Structures are given as C-alpha cells and as structure tokens.
C-alpha cells in the first residue's frame, strides 16, 4: 500500500551491513516498511541477511547502487513514478528523516545524528569496474578473448604487440583506469598515425599506454607526446623509415615533471624511473601497433639505438635564472611541455679540469664537432645536456645560457677547406664548393641545450640528431601537456 497513492510516491533505501549507521537505523527500516509496505524497497550492498525485515533486495552486484549513483549509505530516495527520483537524504539525521518521510515518531528512540559511511560503489578501484560492467564505457576496441590455456603475457608477444620486452596486458579495466587520466573522450581522434596512416583514437593511445606500463596520471603527457609526434615538422613517418639511428627523444619540462615523479637527476637518462621509462615507451608501442611501424618492415634502421625502446627524461629546472628547453622554445616556466627531438644515443663530454667557462666551452664544442661526423656540417641537429656541475661553473662565472650557446657557435665556426671531401685524406666531408666558406656546425636553431643529471660529475652529454634535420626532415617540436 502506497502512502500517497495520488502521486505514486515510493521509497528506495540503500544500506550495507558493514555500516554502523545502517545497523543503528535497523529499527527505522522496520518502521518504514510497516508504514509504506511495498512502497519501500531496501537494497543491501554487502550482505542480504541484513536487515532482518523487510527482506532486502540483493544489490551485492552494486548495479542498482551504481545506476543511482549512491555515494553514502544509508541513502533514502523518494521516487515518483512519473519523474523518477524526487529527492534523497543520506546518513542519519532524525529530524530530516522524519520530515522527509512524514513519519513524526520515526526513530524516536535513536540518537539525533550519525553520519553515514561510504557506499561500496566508491571502494578503491570499484568505479572503473562498475563502469565496465554497467556503465556506457564507450570502449570500442576489438575484444580479444583468451583461451583458458593461453598465457596472458605470451599472448601479447605472440600477437606481435611487444617491443621485445613484456607488456602489461591491456585488459578493459586497465584501459578504463588509464582513460580516467584524461578528460578527453575515448572516441576522440587524436590524428593519423604513420607509417600506415591510420586514424587513432584516445582509446588506442590508452591501450598502448597501459601496455607500456604507464599510470593514468602519466596519460596527459603520453597524449601530448603523440600530438607532438604528429606535428608535420617532426616528420615521424620519415624518422621511422630511416636507415639512420634516430628515433623520438622526449624532454619534459614544467610542473608536471614533479607531479608525476619524473627523474631529472641522478641517472636521469637511465633506468629505474617508471614515468621516464613508460612515457617514452608508450609512443613507441603506439607507432608499432597502430601505425604498423615494425623493425625490419618499414623501420629500416641499420643499427637502431637502445632509445627506440624508450627515451624520455625531465629537465633539471632547479636554477630559476637558467631558461629551460621549453622556455627557449617560447613557453613559460609554469607551462608543462613535452618536446620531441629526432635523435639517438648519448655521447659523453668529460671535462674535469676546466675552471673557466671559455675552457669548458672548448671541450663541449670539440665534442659537438663530431656529431654525425667531424667533417659534416649543417647536417644533424643536437641536444647538449649540461650537467649540474658544468652548469654551476658557467653560472658562477657569470655566463648565461645565451653566452654558452654563443661561445659554442663561435668555437665551431670552421674554414670549409678543412672539412671538404678529401681533406685530411678522408673522402667524407662537405662539398668542394664550400672550400672558401666559413661553416657553422649547426643550422640556426639546430643546437638545443638542456640540463639534467646528478649533482656530482663533471660529465655533460650530447644527444645527436637525425641527419635529415631541418625542414627537409625533422625539426624539434613541443606540445603543451
């Protein structure tokens, strides 16, 4: 019998046995059932033996709780058949419950107030699980069902989804969790992925980010890395196909590096930091799996380089007066930015003897001269990574980053006659016609400078660039995260 048959009002109550407030109001539940009879439906999230009366509806699947978006138990919902939910209250507030139900002596013997407990739908990890089960998660990627005997790790290798190292199996729940890292819709197109030139959705990026081992909080950075790679200036297609060593190298700047725990310090370019390792890997897996860029297929690298597994690090931005790579490229210190450079390897610059900036710049220039080949100029760009100790020497000598760059450029100006083909009994070199010219080693804007590394060690380094640097091939690109 409905309390108010004219408006067809009914009530739904959601409880869980494990909640002391729900236990407290057990007599109230019985009182409500007496009053409303079939106009009250009680849903229990954890144990259908609770409450004793009336017999509750088993919601241990949490389907009803999820559909109703229950956040707190107990929650009492007033429903009107015409309009669905009219209003809801939660926790126990005697006066509120009495007003809400119109039962003046409801729970008269109980304390006045006791806050509720969290709904089971809000247990850790439950939201994604329920979204997968009952929600409209909008995932459209083909579901690959594994047979019982199949090893989940081996399946990923067998299907060609791996770069050679184990991947995290991309289960739907993991992909949904990854997608929580962005506000962007799974079905949004992010761009056309080379070399197969395939339209790619945020969902596919998420799947590959899962496989790379990313946490959801890295996902915006992964998305930005993909957008950077797809900028025409970067020439991802050509970079993938080249016989040269190069592959995307990622430098991350700004607050995001600390927020997601990236490493810019000790061993910044080495192993051991999950964010560094997996963000770089995610792009590589995406190019492989969505783009179809597989070594020996369209990836024709003669030797390749180990950075083709992953090559991603954060810049040390501890010196406020030293502009970051992103700032050199027009961004602000507070911007989070990822920059992609077509490069490879790491060439050390050891200098433990220099005590003047001029001397140190000579060491750096001498090493930079060998990028690609000491006799080839204006060919490959480079990133110079200045270690904190070397930066300190420059800074304590009063040199700015611009001073360092200018000193390097000046030091590298070379008479053409010294580096033309045949000079020094060496066939490689610059065209004969440049014999009488003064040559710059790097194109304008071809030498990029960043800082990373541990506080100890007078060791800087060079990431050498693709020999198709510049407009004819690849230029460094940046993307705001």
């Amino acid at each position, binding site marked *: 019998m409905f309390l108010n048959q004219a408006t067809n009002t009914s009530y739904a109550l959601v409880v869980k046995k494990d909640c002391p407030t729900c236990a407290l109001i057990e007599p109230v539940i019985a009182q409500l059932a007496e009053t409303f009879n079939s106009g009250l439906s009680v849903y229990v999230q954890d144990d259908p033996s609770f409450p004793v009366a009336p017999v509750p509806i088993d919601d241990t699947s949490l389907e009803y709780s999820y559909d109703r978006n229950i956040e707190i138990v107990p929650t009492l919902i007033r429903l009107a058949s015409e309009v669905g939910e009219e209003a809801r209250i939660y926790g126990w507030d005697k006066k509120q419950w009495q007003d809400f139900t119109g039962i003046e002596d409801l729970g008269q013997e109980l304390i006045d107030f006791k806050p509720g407990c969290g709904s089971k739908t809000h247990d850790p990890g439950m939201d994604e699980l329920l979204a997968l089960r009952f929600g409209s998660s909008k*995932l459209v*990627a*083909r*579901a*690959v*069902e*594994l*047979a*019982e005997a*199949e090893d*989940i790790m081996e*399946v*990923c290798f067998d299907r060609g*989804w791996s770069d050679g190292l184990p991947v995290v*199996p*991309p*289960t*739907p729940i993991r*992909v949904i969790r990854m997608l929580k890292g962005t506000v962007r819709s799974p079905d949004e197109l992010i761009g056309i*992925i080379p070399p*197969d030139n*395939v339209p*790619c959705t945020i*969902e*596919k990026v998420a*799947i*590959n980010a899962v*496989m790379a081992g990313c946490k959801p909080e890295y996902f915006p950075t992964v998305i930005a890395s993909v957008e950077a790679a797809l900028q025409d200036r970067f*020439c991802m*297609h*050509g*970079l993938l196909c*080249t016989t040269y060593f190069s592959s995307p190298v990622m430098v991350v700047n700004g607050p995001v590096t600390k927020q997601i725990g990236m490493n810019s310090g000790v061993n910044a370019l080495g192993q051991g930091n999950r964010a560094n390792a997996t963000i770089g890997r995610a792009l590589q*897996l995406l190019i492989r*799996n*969505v*783009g*179809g860029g597989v070594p020996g297929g369209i990836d024709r690298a003669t030797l390749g380089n180990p950075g083709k597994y992953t090559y991603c690090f954060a810049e040390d931005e501890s010196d406020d007066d030293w502009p970051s790579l992103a700032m050199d490229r027009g961004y602000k210190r507070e911007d989070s930015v990822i920059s992609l450079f077509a490069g490879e390897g790491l060439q050390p610059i050891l200098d433990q003897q220099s005590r003047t900036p001029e001397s140190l710049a000579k060491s750096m220039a001498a090493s930079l001269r060998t990028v690609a080949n000491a006799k080839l100029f204006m060919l490959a760009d480079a990133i110079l990574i200045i270690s904190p100790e070397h930066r300190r020497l420059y800074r304590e000598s009063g040199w700015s980053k611009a001073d360092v760059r200018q000193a390097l450029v000046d030091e590298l100006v070379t008479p053409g006659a010294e580096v033309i083909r045949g000079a020094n009994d060496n066939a490689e070199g610059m065209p004969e016609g440049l014999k009488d010219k003064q040559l710059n080693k790097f194109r304008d804007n071809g030498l990029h400078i960043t800082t990373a590394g541990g506080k100890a060690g007078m060791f800087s380094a060079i990431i050498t660039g693709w020999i*198709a640097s510049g407009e*004819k*091939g*690849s230029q460094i690109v940046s993307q705001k995260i």
Partner: protein
Amino acid sequence: MTVQSTTLLDPTAELQPSERQLLPRLSSLAGATVGLLDISKPRGKEFLDEIDTLLTGMGVKVKRYIKPTFARIAPTELNQQISVECDAVIEGLAD
C-alpha cells in the same frame, strides 16, 4: 580451481591491409613514357642519368621528376602528375 577467462583490448589499428593489385605490366616499351623519379638521395641523379641515356637510346620517351626530400613521402601532387604523365616509373631509391 576456477580458471577465469581473460579479455584483452586490441592495441592495433585492427586493419586488414587492403591488398592492392599490381597494375598490368607493360609488354613493350614501344611508345611508352617512362618517368624517372629522383628522391633527392645523394647520387640519385647520376644513376638516373644512366637509365635516361639507356632508355632514350631505345627510343623511349623519358620524363624526369624530383621529390623535394627523401625524408618525407612524395607530395600527392607529384604522385598524381607522374601517374597521369607516365606509363611506368623508375625510382632511384637508395644512395
């Protein structure tokens, strides 16, 4: 022990590469126009010059094309131009 079945989401483009048939081969070069495409790799010109000489000596009409850079795919306009103007094309691919 219950063995739970597992589902993975396909990380690939889920594309079956469309199989493209080769165009019919020319049975003879008589009256044909052959395009020579230089992709801007070092010494591509020298290689194609030789081919040019050989083909011209055989009485074949030759047209020359250059890609702006080897590092990037050919512009669509260039592909279309070659397909309209030539019966066959020879590409100087590597250096």
